[in-house]
């Protein structure tokens, strides 16, 4: 049975599609297209009407489309160590012109289908059709060509004198996988804000070098206190002004105060609606699975300054209100336990992450992104403070208080911690956080090793054991409370 998709979710999907489509269109028209880190103040670029793409969102999408490994490997072949954040590796390979493509026969220009791909063929009664070899037959419609690595610079350098050469070149261009993240336009400028990690600084410097494009940098140093001091605000505020000047030079336009305010208003509206959507996870049982929030994050990242994003979240909010009223939930299993999922999920392994949770009736009802992206501000200085408080730029006390806040509000029974091999700044103080969650909230925590983008770093057996352990601890906890 296909999962029922609410109007809000559909709207959210469309918003992200549009962001990508608009950028492709802008590029076609010869307009500037930029690449930006996810927590760069998009309000600034919006004031110049610039189309901006988000490599982190792109990398997540590539990983979810199962091309994380081939792109990571491509980056490694360029000399980037496999220790480096998987998002950065995927993005750097992409910036260098590498693409995941579909294998084809250069003579016949036909795709070469991978026999291992595809889903089992079912008859009209929904029964799997068996082949003569005793194995399930594949549905030919779902079978895919082999994935191969290609390079746009290599393609563009191909000769195009004969008809055959032209046909080959065009086919090779078209063979690049057609999903939006693999068809993102190359950058004309890059916008880097390193509030979430310093890896970002070097990552964007590398893109700037590879593509020979200007880099606009907003440096937000790590903060050791819950408050953001005035001196820190002054530093970042000055950089905003500096970035505006750079953008004026880049575009030849003046900073448009009105557009800026509009983007700010939209970003605020999106953030509030996002927060309210997140808050629906407080219901018991929750009307949806927190895993869905990871998908909706794409909207917060790529489109928070667009009115459509705000509207889509508001629509989703309505859908959820309705769902709560009629007692419906999109979680495909009865909710027995509620947990916070700490960190970014392993995109290439989402089904594997989900499986044991479903088995044990564990619903994710809290994710750290909820408070981390739900910031609202009223003026430029507050905006600085808001951008200062990114997931990895805050001190441990702030990090703990955010998490414990949603753990309490969303009534979780335990915490599942992703020790994300890609993300050093995030994983670096999780052990201490785990101790605090248990001490302060009396809930069990379990950690597992994984990676947000590189499937080679995830160990399914270990994950299942850890989930099992967490479930047992939550069960014991519940019994203690009752007894």
């Amino acid at each position, binding site marked *: 049975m296909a999962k029922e998709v609410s109007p809000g979710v559909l709207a959210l999907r469309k918003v992200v599609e549009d962001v990508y489509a608009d950028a492709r269109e802008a590029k076609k028209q010869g307009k500037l297209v930029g690449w930006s880190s996810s927590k760069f103040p998009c309000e600034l670029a919006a004031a110049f009407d610039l189309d901006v793409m988000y490599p982190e969102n792109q990398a997540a999408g590539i990983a979810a489309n199962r091309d994380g490994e081939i792109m990571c490997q491509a980056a490694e072949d*360029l*000399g*980037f*160590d496999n*220790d*480096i*954040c998987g998002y*950065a590796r995927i993005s750097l390979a992409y910036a260098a012109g590498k693409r995941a493509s579909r294998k084809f026969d250069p003579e016949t220009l036909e795709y070469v289908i991978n026999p291992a791909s595809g889903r089992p063929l079912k008859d009209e009664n929904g029964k799997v059709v068996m082949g003569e070899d005793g194995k399930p037959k594949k549905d030919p419609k779902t079978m895919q060509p082999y994935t191969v690595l290609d390079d746009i610079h290599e393609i563009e350098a191909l000769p195009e004198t004969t008809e055959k050469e032209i046909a080959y070149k065009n086919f090779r261009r078209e063979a690049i996988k057609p999903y939006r993240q693999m068809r993102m336009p190359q950058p004309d400028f890059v916008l880097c804000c*390193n509030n979430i*990690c*310093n*890896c970002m*600084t*070097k*990552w*964007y*410097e*590398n893109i*700037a*070098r590879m593509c*020979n*494009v*200007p*880099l606009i*940098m907003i*440096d937000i*140093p*790590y*903060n*050791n206190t819950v408050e953001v*001091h005035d*001196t*820190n605000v*002054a*530093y970042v505020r*000055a*950089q905003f002004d*500096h970035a505006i000047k750079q953008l004026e030079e880049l575009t030849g336009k003046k900073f448009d105060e009105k557009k800026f305010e509009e983007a700010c208003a939209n970003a605020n509206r999106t953030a509030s609606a996002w927060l309210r959507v997140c808050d629906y996870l407080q219901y018991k049982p929750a009307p949806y699975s927190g895993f869905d929030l990871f998908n909706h994050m794409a909207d917060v990242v790529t489109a928070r300054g667009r009115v459509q994003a705000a509207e889509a979240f508001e629509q989703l909010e309505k859908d959820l209100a309705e769902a709560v009223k009629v007692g419906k939930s999109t979680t495909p299993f009865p909710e027995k336990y509620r947990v916070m999922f700490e960190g970014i999920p392993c995109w290439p392994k989402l089904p594997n992450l989900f499986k044991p949770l479903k088995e044990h009736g564990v619903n994710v009802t809290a994710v750290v992104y909820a408070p981390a992206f739900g910031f609202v501000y009223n003026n430029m200085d507050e905006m600085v403070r808001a951008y200062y408080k990114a997931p*990895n730029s805050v*001190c*441990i006390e702030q990090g703990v208080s955010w998490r414990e806040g949603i753990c309490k509000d969303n009534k979780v029974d335990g915490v599942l911690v992703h*020790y994300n*091999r890609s993300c*050093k*700044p*995030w*994983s*670096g*103080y*999780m*052990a*201490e956080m785990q101790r605090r969650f248990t001490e302060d909230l009396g809930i069990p925590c379990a950690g597992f*090793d994984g990676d947000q983008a590189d499937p080679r770093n995830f160990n399914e057996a270990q994950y299942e054991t850890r989930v099992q352990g967490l479930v047992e601890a939550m069960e014991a906890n519940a019994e203690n409370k009752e007894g």
Partner: protein
Amino acid sequence: MSIEVLLKEFAEISEHPRRQIQAFKAEGKKVVGVLPYYAPEELVYAAGMVPMGIWGSNKKTISMAKEYCATFYCTIAQLALEMLLDGTLDDLDGLITPTICDTLRPMSQNFRVAMKDKLPCIFLAHPQQRKPAFGIQFTMDQYQHVKGELEKISGNTITDEALREAIKVYNRSRAARREFVKLAGEHPDVISAVSRSAVLRSAWFMIKDDHTAKVEALNAELRALPPCDWKGKKILTSGIICDNPKLLQIFDDNQIAIAADDVAHESRMIRVDAAETGDPMMALAQQFADQDYDILLYDENSNQNRRADFVVKQIKDSGAQGLVLFMQQFCDPEEMEYPYLKKALDAAGIPHIKLGVDQQMRDFGQASTAIQAFADVL
């Protein structure tokens, strides 16, 4: 003093940092641990205390630090925490924790949490936009905070005069070390890779006046030597740190001399001096602004390959024939800059090898084979 005696003294100190701390304490001095990178040690000195560089350890194994860290963090940071937890650094009176990389950011929190009630930890965040006026101001603000915390620990006010004096002491130390690096490159017959490292490493464990006096004495002896007719090979070392005598011994055994270095623990930290006149806090901030060509620092002209070009030039100027990169495991800033370093080296026809290292390495068989093979292609 003869070269031999001096080198022996450096080696002794370099191998026994803990003994150094204890000796300082016995003299009634306060000692402040200084983690990498770019902490203004001058402030510690000006407060009348001894700064002690903490760059991990070649002798320890990670055990207690596992309570705080997943495995995928560099040993430099993990072993620093290990030594704080296992009592090695119990005599410290304070600790400065810079946060310029993604490992040191969360580690600053671990240090502070683990040392709660035990050791004051002084947080330091450098700006990456260090050159514009607003960046210099931010550095000054951060240093002001460090200064205040150091004053609390020492009980002394850091006067401008004392700070200016400290800057002079440090400028002189850096100049002496820079000259030593040059002389060591010219006289590999007397300064082995192992002793070269000891001279530079001990600087982190000594009061700079004492270290400088010894280095200047050594430099004088080296200057007086006849030119050396080196029959072996010469290389430039690059990376965060390469101070393991066992590893360096392989270079000596294979007649590979270190002509110069692009190593954080050695030359990267002593390239730039601070002004000895004017506002000394401003001088320190300007000094940080002037730092350059470092994988840890933002480059405003990042669409060029300035840092790698700088390293290529260093190689040419120093007469090195190739580059050995000591790649600390899990050090992403260094890893992120490797492809473009490689590109510049290849373009200039300079051979290089990348040696994966960490501070828990005890067996250097593989490294030895790689280094020998590399010597053959030079």
